């Protein structure tokens, strides 16, 4: 493989990391049956605040911590409004996404275009020496490795632990979850907050890792919506989510490269990644794959179905009252 290509893939992995973290955060939240629609604004606000905190304290750790807290706080508002005040999650999320985005622009003014700290690059010894793969995946900063670990951990948590069963059940059939002794609304609080904190960390990943700093025309504006789409594309499964994020980022890069070489209306080109995503989704949700799945040995079928599912958690966006 040519060096140019490997370098390009390396930078795609680095640039996609925030998207991966945010999508996994949202996946966790939605699996519990709550939908956090504030992603786009939350990311902006967390990116700004994370950078500001890191810049002031000269510590990226503090920056990431502040960003996580912002994301968690926004998520907490959604959970509280949905569960306690019985408001509509979608409406609240929508209002919050606009509010937080404006807040980020307004409060971020003093920090525009000033230099600040950045998470240092840290190639993993041995692993980064593997030809090609090492450079693509293991020559990054800690944020990127965290995103890998996050995907693995969230997958293991969901499908291999007792808590994971409860998490999924709460999003599928809260009545049944309640009957099995799960505290439905408590679980929803926890996972909404965790998911929100991850969205905040994703914000910090933009402003402290991908492109350090805070800018007047924030480059990550819009990525929150993309993350929401990737969760759907990813079928609420961590593996497919990370795959979807990389796929999308790669397509976006290809389109960006094409723009300089071919003469084609820019707006149409920009829709290309979305069209391809929709096509893939249609393939996944058609009956063909289910038929193929039935051919597999019984034990593999479950894993396969988990990965291939295209239905949202059945109880997403609904309220749960005991009676």
């Amino acid at each position, binding site marked *: 493989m040519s060096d140019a290509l490997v370098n390009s893939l390396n930078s795609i992995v680095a640039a996609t990391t925030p998207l991966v973290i945010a999508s996994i955060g949202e996946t966790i939240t939605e699996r519990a049956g709550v939908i956090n629609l504030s992603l786009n604004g939350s990311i902006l606000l967390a990116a700004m605040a994370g950078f500001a905190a890191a810049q002031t304290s000269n510590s990226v750790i503090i920056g990431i911590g502040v960003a996580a807290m912002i994301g968690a706080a926004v998520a907490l508002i959604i959970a509280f409004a949905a569960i306690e005040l019985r408001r509509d999650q979608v409406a609240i999320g929508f209002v919050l996404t606009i509010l937080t985005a404006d807040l980020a622009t307004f409060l971020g003014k003093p920090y525009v275009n000033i230099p600040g700290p950045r998470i240092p690059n840290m190639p993993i010894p041995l692993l980064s020496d593997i030809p090609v793969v090492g450079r693509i995946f293991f020559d990054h900063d800690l944020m990127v490795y965290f995103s890998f670990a996050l995907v693995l951990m969230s997958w293991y948590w969901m499908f*291999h*632990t*007792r*808590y994971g*069963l*409860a998490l*999924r*059940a709460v999003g*599928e*059939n809260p*009545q*049944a*979850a*309640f*009957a*099995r*002794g799960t505290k439905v609304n408590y679980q929803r609080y926890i996972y909404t907050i965790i998911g929100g904190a991850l969205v905040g960390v994703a914000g910090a990943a933009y402003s402290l890792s991908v492109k350090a700093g805070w800018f007047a025309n924030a480059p990550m504006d819009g990525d929150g919506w993309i993350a929401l789409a990737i969760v759907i594309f990813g079928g609420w499964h961590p593996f497919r989510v990370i795959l979807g994020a990389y796929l999308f980022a790669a397509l976006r890069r290809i389109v960006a490269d094409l723009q300089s070489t071919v003469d084609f209306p820019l707006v149409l080109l920009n829709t290309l990644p979305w069209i391809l995503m929709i096509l893939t989704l249609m393939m996944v949700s058609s009956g063909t794959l289910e038929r193929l799945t039935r051919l597999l040995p*019984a*034990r593999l*079928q*479950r894993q396969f*179905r988990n990965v291939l*599912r295209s*239905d949202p*958690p*059945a109880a997403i966006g609904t309220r749960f009252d*005991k*009676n």
Partner: protein
Amino acid sequence: MQLKNIHKRFGQVHANNNISVTFHPGRVIGILGENGAGKSTLMKIIAGYQPADSGEIWLDGRPVNYHDPRDAISHGIGMLQQDPLDIGAFSVLENFVYGQSGGILLNRKTSRQQLIALCQQFNFELDPDTPVSQLSIAQRQQLEIIRLLGLGVKVLILDEPTTGISAAQKEQLFNTLKRLAKEQNMTILLVSHKLEDVLALCDEVIVLRAGQLVGDMQMPTTKAALVELMFGAQIQPVKRESRLQPNTPIVLDMQQVHLHDGRLDIPQINFSLRAGEVIGLAGLDGSGQALFMRACAGLIKPHAGRVFVKGQDLTGQSYHQFNRSGVIFAASGRLEEGLIADMTLTEHIALMYEQNTWINWRRAHQFTQRQIERFNVRGKPDDPIQALSGGNQQRVLMGLLPENATALILEQPTRGLDVDSARWIWDQLLTKNSAIIYSSADLDEIMTYSDRIIVFYAGRMKVIDDPHQVTVSDLGHYIGGDFS
């Protein structure tokens, strides 16, 4: 177990009124009562799904206090809901494990062995890796029973467990329940509307009427005595004369139709339905009745062959087209396919009857009120549908059927109805003069109301042109696949 002065009100409705009763271990106790009598409410209180307004529950001579189903299970009380409360997206194994206590990590291997062992003990065929959404109702019940046994319950409550399952599956269930009572000294509480079942299985019966405990009877007794205790009067079964004249027009015609779905295959259907004819479909769950009915209603497209409605070729057309030609379908999964949770009765009516863009709510409201009176529904126009008792939901579903349909395709139309209500629904259905295709697990019902009977076995069909020529036990044989 002892209940002392249990009260429960829902607004104006006194669903349980001062109920005191004692249940002994090692016995199967039947809970009888008409629709809306308060049976499910009482069972849910015992199993911790909802709190009583007042009253006490005593176990082994001590009052106990629990607040949720999980607590109840730790006291040894488990309940199988009218519609099994499980998680469709989980595999059988995951459903079995979920709710058990243990470490953070799942031990799939041990749990799998436990599940398989319990399945073998009761002859249940459950594959640990199948998603629960692909199981039949009977299998989901079996899974719930096994799950509760795995949790060590000593009191098992079943709310109308036989409404969605076939005769053979029922027999298996009853054998299981008898064994649990006798061998493991469990207390089994069985809510049922089928008096035959109660007579066959129970050692003792209690009867509720309008929220009150009105009777208690030891077995053996007779059906007539039970009916009298339930309704305070004897009920005559309707006598039905065949209304079929030799040259009534054909309203629905299937020619060389081939249906296929998953493992099931019905190769060659040649079948015609005449105006006003009533056809009963018998057979085990999943033998093809569901497929056949959905094909009649245009919900499933045939692989080959043609479907005509009133002479018009509607092969491959949408359900909407069939609907316009007067073919109406009502599914057995009440809340899954037929009714919309969270919508009120009036909204259901409006959805069905209001044709204009702007809904005339006053008219819809009045019409709902009339349907409620006509179908004797216990509920108000503004109640959300899930606040009604199971049987009353079924009445609403029947009340939604239009008056002048050509053909009604009804999946288990009297599922969950008490004897009196079932008879009443049939009265209403038969006065509509529509042709009817219906399925039922109740062979007496099939024999009583059908002009013709079709028995399904693994995708094969046997048409019985004159029900008077066969007996219930013949039907039982056919259902088992013995077609000769």
